[in-house]
């Protein structure tokens, strides 16, 4: 199984907890016969890298000057699409799914799904409502609309706690059956992620 992983942070770029989690996840997936391709951002270390047996693709923003993280993210998505499409064509179109971590590259995941039929998992580290404490300026609402898009276009949603599952249901009215709780503190979390991936793959075979 080949999986493309989207994350806006990955070592050496560490913003929060997500960077190391995505690296641990990739290492564990590789041990379980999944070939992960990480697509991430770095200001200047761009290109394809082999790091500990993992394939890491780093892109930079084609537009350097920005007025907010929102516009910054929205012009970065096309570079993510470009690299994801390159992986797709290089592997003979054999990509099972995309695992998009947080909202940043949801636009790319949704477009790739519509264009190439690659389903995606939306893995939630945090939500805009919690980051901005319920603020509802047009800026926050725009980020929330991207989270909403991800929630509704994803084939499955992975959260890290029961509380976050409740929040996703409360804020975005997501059907409960779509949400899978994977606690990264538990000993068997990589297996749980893998189960979600496999359920997606089966669903694609059933319907596709």
């Amino acid at each position, binding site marked *: 199984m080949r999986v493309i992983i989207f994350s806006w942070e990955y070592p050496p770029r560490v913003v929060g907890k997500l960077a190391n989690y995505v690296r641990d996840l990739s290492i564990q997936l590789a041990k379980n016969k999944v070939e992960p391709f990480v697509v991430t951002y770095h200001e200047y270390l761009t290109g394809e890298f082999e790091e500990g047996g993992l394939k890491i693709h780093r892109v930079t923003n084609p537009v350097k000057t920005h*007025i907010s993280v929102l*516009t910054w993210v929205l012009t970065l998505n096309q570079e993510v699409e470009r690299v994801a499409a390159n992986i797709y064509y290089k592997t003979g179109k054999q990509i099972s799914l995309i695992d998009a971590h947080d909202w940043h590259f949801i636009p790319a995941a949704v477009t790739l799904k519509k264009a190439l039929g690659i389903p995606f998992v939306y893995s939630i580290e945090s939500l805009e409502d919690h980051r901005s404490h319920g603020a509802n300026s047009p800026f926050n609402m725009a980020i929330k609309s991207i989270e909403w898009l991800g929630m509704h276009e994803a084939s499955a949603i992975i959260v890290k706690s029961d509380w976050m599952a409740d929040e996703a249901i409360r804020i975005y009215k997501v059907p409960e059956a779509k949400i899978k709780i994977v606690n990264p503190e538990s000993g068997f979390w990589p297996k749980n992620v893998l189960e979600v991936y496999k359920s997606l793959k089966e669903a694609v075979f059933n319907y596709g």
Partner: protein
Amino acid sequence: MASPLRVMMLTWEFPPRIIGGISPHVYYLSKNLAKNDVKVYVVTCDFPGAPDHETMDGVEVFRIDSYKNPSPDFASWVYLMNMNMQKEAAALVKSLGGVDIFHAHDWLVANAGIGLKHIFRKPLLATIHSTEIGRRNGLHSDYERMIHETEAWLTYEAWRVICCSNYMVSHVRWAFGLPEDKLVMIPNGVDAKEYAKDAVDLSQFRKRFALPEEKIVLYVGRLVYEKGIQILISAVPKILEKVNAKFVVVGNGYMKEPLSEQVKRMGLAHKVLFTGFVDDETLRSLQKCADVCVVPSLFEPFGIVALEAMAAKSPVVVSDTGGLSEIVEHDVTGVKVYPNPDSLAWGVTRVLLDENYANRLRENAYRMVVEKFNWEKISQQTKDVYKQVLDEYSKTFWA
């Protein structure tokens, strides 16, 4: 190529949504490409009352959800709209079984065009109608720099960049540092047939705007600094010293309030009429009634209003700048002036006081418009660029 070439046009405006010149441009280009055996799919923003999907003059038009939540600012809205446009266009391309070329108009659809190019591995063409650095006469904030860099990104990703005048080719080449062989000049066009129709009784129509003894001086355009409307307003008393005229100002913009205040202070409110935005038929009738049309722009990538006036057989007085310099040949197809009130007043009175001279300009200009700026010819030139790009594409590993 046995099956017709399939082009997906991306544009933020398409009739009935009309904000500026891109909407009519893409409409006439698409319509004439369709007549010329090109399958055209237009993907554009939705508009109240317009259907999500329709066929207009052989062109398939798809209107996308243009992101209607409140947005922090215009540029953020553009990027959010592109997210939706790209998503819907991607599904459309998949359902159509593919297209051959993506053609994007201005930075307003840059993200969508660039993403689709890479995902479907098809060539992207861009038409640059205007630039941020030109509109603002420099880059003065991060907001403006961001838009400028987005324009640069679009021209970087495009296989060819089309501009509508030689002036714009050189401007775009300078602004983004492009190689010469990436740029193509294809002029903008005007449909002279639209002006040949006699929809209304012009002598009756004229009475709505001017007294019989008044000549009509017509301005059409956004009421913004770069269009030079303030130059015309300052020239009004100078012109009125020589000729009795009514100044009809069509269009909206942030300068409308200050300018109408200025006109009142000058005691000339009865001589200057601000009509706001008018429908196409009223506009064409006005252009046909006008004794002179003025285009006093300070920055003008092309100058379509001058061509429209010529098609309506109105004499034109334009400032000698940008695309206007190329359209108008002084004393032959119009009058060129410096962008200042004295020079403009000189040009306008010259046309209004010499009927033989005015008639000669009308005839020459009309003939030139029909020969050089007709959409059949322009669509053929565009199709030739498509074919050339597809030929190059067929030799790449994407094919």
